[in-house]
């Protein structure tokens, strides 16, 4: 469904991605894991069109997204949740969700989608009139994901949704993500919380220094020695 081929991406003269290729099939929950500065966020920005690559292709259902503006890519069915969520703090929870359904196709079914989002995140319904700036970190993250779901995406890109959350919340967050995926949304999950991410996902890719250095099922990678020592702190494995 989503296919990334040989992406080279730059910030100014600095190359951040070197020939990245991978694929996410319909209905899958795929993780992209790697250390700080590896290029995870950059990869998501390329997919969502916020950063145009200097070489390579991004395809959604075989359609080339290379020439499309970022706002058009949302319309075509890819929604990215930014690192830290970036909710509109001056607006209410409800207004944030309404903005999520900005694109025409989503706006038509807005009221139904809101019910669906409230079903996944009941906390958002309780807080709907509250200003998003007054939400807790976990609630903001839920709102950010809920807002992205309002666009009825085919593919949801999540950038470290567990970042900064207490361990108990991290677990809940991952359960919610699994639930969203079960409801038919294809998910590409970027995580530093490697163990949790690998336990959760069908497949995962490992990225380092802007290159894909490993791939496999979550279980495969969990037993991979280099991964264990590098990311899971199991030096004696």
């Amino acid at each position: 469904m989503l296919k990334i081929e040989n992406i080279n991406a730059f910030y100014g003269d600095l190359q951040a991605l070197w020939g990245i290729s991978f694929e996410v099939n319909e209905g899958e929950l795929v993780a992209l894991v790697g250390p700080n500065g590896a290029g995870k966020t950059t990869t998501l920005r390329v997919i969502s069109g916020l950063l145009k690559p200097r070489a390579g292709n991004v395809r959604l259902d075989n359609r080339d997204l290379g020439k499309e503006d970022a706002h058009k890519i949302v319309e075509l069915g890819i929604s990215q949740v930014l690192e830290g969520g970036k909710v509109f703090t001056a607006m209410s929870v409800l207004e944030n969700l309404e903005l999520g359904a900005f694109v025409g196709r989503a706006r038509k079914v807005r009221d139904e989608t809101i019910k669906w989002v409230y079903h996944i995140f009941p906390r958002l319904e309780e807080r709907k009139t509250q200003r998003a700036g007054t939400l807790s970190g976990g609630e903001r993250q839920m709102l950010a994901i809920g807002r992205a779901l309002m666009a009825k995406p085919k593919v949801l890109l999540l950038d470290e949704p567990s970042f900064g959350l207490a361990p108990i919340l991290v677990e809940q967050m991952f359960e919610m993500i699994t639930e969203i995926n079960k409801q038919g949304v294809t998910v590409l999950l970027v995580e530093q919380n490697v163990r949790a991410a690998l336990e959760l996902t069908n497949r995962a890719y490992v990225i380092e220094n802007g290159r894909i250095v490993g791939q496999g099922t979550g279980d495969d990678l969990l037993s991979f020695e280099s991964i264990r020592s590098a990311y899971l702190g199991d030096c004696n494995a």
Partner: protein
Amino acid sequence: MLEALAQNLVYGILIGALYGLAAVGLSLVFGVTKFLNVSHGELLMLGGYASFWLFALWKVDPFISLPAAIIFLLVAGVVFYKLLFGRMVKLAEGDKIQNTLLVGFGLSLILQNLALQFWTADTRSITTAYSGAVFSFAGVRFPLVRVASLVIAFVLIVALQLFLRRTYTGKALRATVENWEAATLMGIDIQRVYLLSFVMGAALAGVAGALVAVGYSIEPAMGMSWTLKSLVVMVLGGLGSITGTFVGGIILGVTESATGFFLSLTYREVVGLVLFLLVLVFRPQGLFGVKEG
């Protein structure tokens, strides 16, 4: 003495409403696009002359011709944006601020000199049959056209507020103010939002200019002072608060006239800048703004 003071206060509020209107336009553009349009005062001047010439040539009542002034500035706004400012918005933040400042200065000089060439340096104002009309209350005089201008400014601010709060487009604008990347990821075409906010800012300047032409007077060189006043009010009111900015305008108007009354007219023009510095130092988020974070 008391009556004279009250009279002064009223004049301050009346001119302040126009400062507020002009500043809301500047602030809207700044909030959305993150560039400071230093030719805002010249756009205001254009609105003033549009209204003036419609009246002088064809005897169109300046209040009736307000929509024409708005349309004129909307068109001018599109042209200036497409030709000049729109090219800068894709630049990195720092470059964008620098380049748009330069472009703004350039445009402001060009417009000022064109106005001087075509319309001479004469001070003009619109004198209608009702221009002298005044009603009095408790010994204080209320010039009719200026009161009408205040009402119009107020109505426009309320309408703008409703637009920003209630409509999808208005919400898209507010979303872009807060975070353009997050807004883009909602499917909002922020290039269009930038253009929209710029032309709306131009239109607000145009209305303010037309109201200045009928209640006060206009001249080709007026722009700089209006840009400065708008800037002072924008900082005073606090970014992102439309009502705060409008009230900030009235505060500046009242402060100016109080300074004229208690000190001397010489200090009237500087007091705004003093206020500007005080706010920047002691309350950088503005009188009505909320702290970030």
